[in-house]
Structures are given as structure tokens and as C-alpha cells.
């Protein structure tokens, strides 16, 4: 037995890791998305009137900031093989919480803290049903999608709260002095670094990948599967609530139906960014590029007077193409490994 283990690494060659590190990094799916992002930007800047202006960046980032924020925890959740469809409803719930508390006289800071707490509790509700009761996340979060939205609309009815402290609404729309970058990006970059470190550089993050690749194997290797998932859903709720606060302040309007349908934009961007819907694969950088790609494409096409139906068609086709290409590539990859190494290790499950 011991002899085998010592013997095996010497003869086996993993094709994936046979090449130098820079080549492995260069030819990844994430690199392809980033390259695509750069190409689309350059082409749009050259061919679409008004696109090259710095204000495009400002509008674009203000628009996608909500999606960028929610995509961070969503990436980790999808990598574990789960999904959270209730995020947009948590945005609505957080928006209404902020609005009603502020209307009742609470300052924005305190109302915002309560809203984030409400979001975390909402995430904990999801986490409880998924990890303690053991229900599938798809079913649970479809239910809470309706539940949280219902609570949000029920609390505020069809009215809206609009009288927010000007300091905060101005801050939500402000730019970093001297740049076209909105200030909210500072918040995003901090959170992105936190989530990237959590996912890529900690044992917790390795556990996230392990759960996605093989939940049972991860459990037997000592990963606390339930605890990890529970934490991720609470994080998702809290970050969605934070995004809801930004959303509310940016538009200066707290409504129960704020951000309806946003969950699909978030999931689409995460998948486009190279995260496998089956779990176990993906990284933060690719997801950020995915969100920006959809944003830039929409922005350029709108400036080119393309109607929103056509923009939806193009975005949808891009998403399908990206998912299909991954499957085709995985198939080719398996064939090549099969041909190259007769008794090699089984190819890792790809999407």
C-alpha cells in the first residue's frame, strides 16, 4: 500500500498541470472572458458614438454595482453546487426596511444596520431550511423569493419612501474625486478582496470547492459541509441587503418592488464568468469580468440605439454560447486525456 502511494506520483503526468504556470493561467476560461471584455470595450469605443466618454464608465459602474455586490457571495454559493434565488427579494426587503425605519425617524446609519441584519436573518432562514432541514436550495429559495418579496410589498404597500438624507443619497451617486469611478466601487473592491481571499486563500474556500466537486468526499475529508453552506447563505443575505441599501439610496426611492428579477441578472453574470452551475469550478475574477461584460455590452448597444429586446437576445445568446462552449470543451478535453493517458486518473467533473 505504501509502496503504491510512493510510486504513483513519479509515473503519472497530469496534463492540466504539465505546462508552465503562466500558460495555465493564460489559457483559462476566465482569461477568455477578460479578453472578450477588453475586445468588446475597444470595439465599442471605436465604433459606437459617445461610448469612449468617461461618463460611460460612471453610468455603467453605477448600474452594475448592485449586481457586482450580490455576485460575490453568489459565486461561492454556486461553487458549492447550491443556488440562491431570493437575493433580489432580499434587496427589496432591505430597501423597505431602510425606508420604513427612516420614515419613522431613525437615522440612515441605524436603519441601514437593521436592514443588513434583516438580510442576514433572511439568509439564515434560507440556510436553516437547506442545511438543517436538508431541502434543496432551488426549492427553498424559490419559496423565499416569493416570501421575502411578499413581506417587502406588504410592509410598504404600493407607496414609496423618498425623503432620504441628502448626504447619503449624494454619496451613493458620488464619484471618487478626479476619476469617473463611482465611490460605491470602493465598497465593492473591499468586499471583492475579502471574498477572493476567503475563496482562494483559506481552508474555508478550499472546502467550498470540495463541496461542489463531491459533497460526500468533502464531508469525509473533514469539511463541515452544513456549516459552510449556512455561513454562505447568511453572507448572501447580508450582502444582498447591503446592495439593497445602495440601490435605495442611489435611486432615492424605497419600494417593495425594487430590483424585481435582479436574481436572474446576477446568476447569468456569474455563469458567464465561468462558474459551473454544477459546482466546484469558477473564480471571483472571472465573475467580475462576466458582470462587466454584460454591463458593457448593454451600455454599448443602448448607445447604438439597439432596442432592449435585441439586447436581451444578444445577452441570452452569449450566455448560452458560453455554457455550451464549456460543455463542448470539457468533452474535447476528456477525449484528449483519454487518448493521451490510457490508465490516467479520471478527468475531473466539468460542466
Amino acid at each position, binding site marked *: 500500500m505504501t509502496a503504491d502511494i510512493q510510486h504513483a506520483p513519479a509515473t503519472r503526468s497530469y496534463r492540466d498541470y504539465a505546462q508552465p504556470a503562466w500558460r495555465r493561467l493564460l489559457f483559462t476560461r476566465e482569461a*477568455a472572458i477578460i479578453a472578450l471584455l477588453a475586445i468588446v470595450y475597444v470595439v465599442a469605443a471605436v465604433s459606437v458614438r459617445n461610448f469612449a466618454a468617461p461618463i460611460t464608465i460612471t453610468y455603467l459602474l453605477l448600474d452594475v454595482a448592485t449586481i457586482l455586490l450580490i455576485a460575490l457571495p453568489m459565486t461561492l454559493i454556486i461553487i458549492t453546487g447550491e443556488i440562491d434565488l431570493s437575493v433580489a427579494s432580499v434587496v427589496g426587503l432591505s430597501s423597505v426596511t431602510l425606508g420604513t425605519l427612516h420614515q419613522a425617524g431613525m437615522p440612515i446609519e441605524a436603519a441601514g444596520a437593521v436592514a443588513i441584519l434583516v438580510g442576514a436573518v433572511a439568509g439564515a432562514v434560507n440556510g436553516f431550511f437547506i442545511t438543517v432541514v436538508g431541502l434543496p436550495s432551488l426549492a427553498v429559495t424559490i419559496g423565499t423569493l416569493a416570501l421575502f418579496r411578499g413581506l417587502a410589498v406588504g410592509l410598504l404597500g404600493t407607496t414609496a419612501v423618498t425623503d432620504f438624507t441628502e448626504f447619503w443619497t449624494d454619496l451613493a451617486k458620488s464619484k471618487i474625486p478626479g476619476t469617473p469611478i463611482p465611490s460605491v466601487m470602493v465598497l465593492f473592491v473591499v468586499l471583492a478582496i475579502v471574498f477572493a481571499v476567503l475563496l482562494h486563500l483559506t481552508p474555508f474556500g478550499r472546502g467550498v470547492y470540495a463541496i461542489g466537486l463531491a459533497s460526500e468526499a468533502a464531508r469525509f475529508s473533514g469539511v463541515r459541509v452544513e456549516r459552510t453552506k449556512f455561513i454562505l447563505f447568511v453572507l448572501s443575505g447580508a450582502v444582498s441587503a447591503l446592495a439593497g441599501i445602495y440601490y435605495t439610496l442611489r435611486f432615492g426611492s424605497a419600494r417593495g418592488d425594487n430590483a424585481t428579477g435582479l436574481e436572474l441578472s446576477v446568476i447569468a453574470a456569474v455563469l458567464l464568468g465561468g462558474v459551473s452551475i454544477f459546482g466546484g469550478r469558477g473564480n471571483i475574477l472571472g465573475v467580475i469580468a462576466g458582470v462587466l461584460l454584460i454591463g458593457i455590452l448593454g451600455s454599448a448597444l443602448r448607445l447604438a440605439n439597439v432596442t432592449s429586446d435585441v439586447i436581451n437576445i444578444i445577452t441570452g445568446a452569449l450566455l448560452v454560447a458560453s455554457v455550451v462552449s464549456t460543455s463542448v470543451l470539457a468533452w474535447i*478535453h476528456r477525449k484528449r486525456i483519454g487518448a493521451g493517458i490510457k490508465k490516467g486518473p479520471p478527468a475531473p467533473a466539468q460542466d
Partner: protein
Amino acid sequence: MTFSTKRVGALAALAVSVALVATGCAASDGGDGGSGGGDGGNLAITFLPKNLGNPYFDTSDAGGKAAIEEFGGTYAEVGPTEAAPDAQVSFINTLTQQGVGGIVVSANDPEAICDALNEARDNGIKVVTFDSDTNADCRDLFINQATADGIAKVEVDEIAKQIGNAGQIAILSASANATNQNAWIETMKTYLASDYPDIELVDVVYGDDDDQTSFDKTAALLQTYPELKGIISPTTVGIAAAARYLSTSAFKGKVALTGLGTPNQMRDYVEDGTVTSFALWNPGDLGYLAAYAAKALIEGDITGAEGDTFDAGKLGSYTVGADGAVLLGDPYVFDKDNIGDFDF
């Protein structure tokens, strides 16, 4: 992962780029017209409805297009596919960047698009709202489709005409706490008392803007008041449900029905004689007036101040009222003769 990933990525990039270049080129032709302007200012006017594919806004925007073609401007229509509160913001930002002359918008949310509209106005774009207003400080003019007085008066006049100025009538409203409907009903009561003393309002019932409830309430009204001669339903759900009940009952043609409805809902009942006439505003005229208002602002004829007067083509001359609002006029009465002209 390997070489082929890169190749597929590159192919996808190429495809997207080609699509973008193609649309970009096509668009720059349209853009020229937009920035071209003319002597009297930049008459590129873009309509931004609550959402696309909505027959009501198709009608209003067609009215706007007709007006813009009359005065030689450039018409465009953009909008989101869903009427979400924030969905119009990115379109307004885009129009600001493109530097159009005027934006005519029906707001999904009175507050959410305010900053974007004010940014557009800071860049010299004139903003006209129609159908649904924003806060008054975010736009230059609001084209108001109807007032409470106008709606109440036209409905009472129509029912009086149909029942011969005398007899019992009832009102089938939306919900008991619907702000608009309650205001209209109060005005109707006053107007009935002063102008039609022989008409008796026997009851106000509430169908909650639910089709089945409104249907049942209509049946109950006719049971309770056998002498009833007419029903007013100042809500589009109520009038359609009441018409459906009447059309299949013995009361068809004997009990008059009028109120606020849309031509597509009411067409069958007008054609089969259940309903003689009903009222609403004409969205085509609303869009037409909004386009002329934008033109007057762009050319500097008016600033949007109270008392400003401008010309609106076939509709005649209009005066800006308080808070920068322009009233389209009395509600439009639809009957057998004109209903065929409308599709919304």
C-alpha cells in the same frame, strides 16, 4: 483550459465584435439626424414609455411620432421591456450621452428617475412627462391626461344622456379606499345634485378591481334595485365585468352602462349594443401634445412657466397651468362610430 478554450473564446469575441460593429455603424446614421438639429434647435425627440410592447404606449408614441413628423423633427422610441422602477434610468443616461433635444417620458417611479432626468436637463435636454408624472422639480412640463372634474363630468353627462335625465343609477367602483375613484365619486355626487336633480344615486358598490367580484356586484345591484336605469363604473376592470354581465342578462340594452374603459376591452360590448359609450382620454392625442410641448421648449418659445402658451398642431393652442402641468382636455368619449379607430 487548453489551446481550444482560447480559440473558442477568440471566436466568441470576434462574433460579438462583428455584431457590435454592424449595429454601431447602423446606429451612427441615426445619430447624425439626432445631433443635426436645425435652425430652431435640436428637434431630436425621444419617447421613453414605461415599457415597450404596451398597446397603450404604442398608441401614445404613434401620436408623438405623427406630431414630430409634422414639424420636421427626429422621432425615436426607446424603453425597457419591463416596467421596473429603475429600468428607465440607463435609457435616460444613454439619451443624455447621445445629446438628444428632448425626452418625453412616462415615469415608472416619480423619484427613481429624478436624478437622471435632472442630469439630462443640466446638459440642455428638455424633459416632458406624460401619463405618469415625476416630482415637479425633475421635468420641464407634465402633460396631464385628465382632471377629476373632467372625468366625473363626462361620466355623469353620458349616463344622463342615455337614461333621459331621470331615474335611479348606481356606481360600481374599484376598492373602497381607492384615492382617484373616491375623489371622482365625490365630484359626481356634487355635479348630480346641481345639474341633474331627477337622477337618484341609489348605491355605490365596490368590485375591488377584481373581475369576478365586480361581476357579482353588478348582478347583486340589478337584483336589489329592479328600477335601476344606469350604472357608472369609473374603473376599467369594473366596466368590463359589468358589461360582460349585462351582455348575457335580460337587462342588456335596458340598463345603461358607462364609465372609464379601454377600446379593446369594450369593443365587443359596444358593437353588440350593451354599451352605448364610455370615456377615457385619447393616448394618441396625449403623445401628440407631449411632442409639441417638447418642441416649444426646445425652440425656446416657452420655459414651462405658468401661463406660457404654445401651439400644438391640430389640437390647437395650450396654456401651461400650475406646477408646469398642461391639461390635454376633456376625456375622450368612445362610441360605435369611432371605436374602430383605436387599438389599445
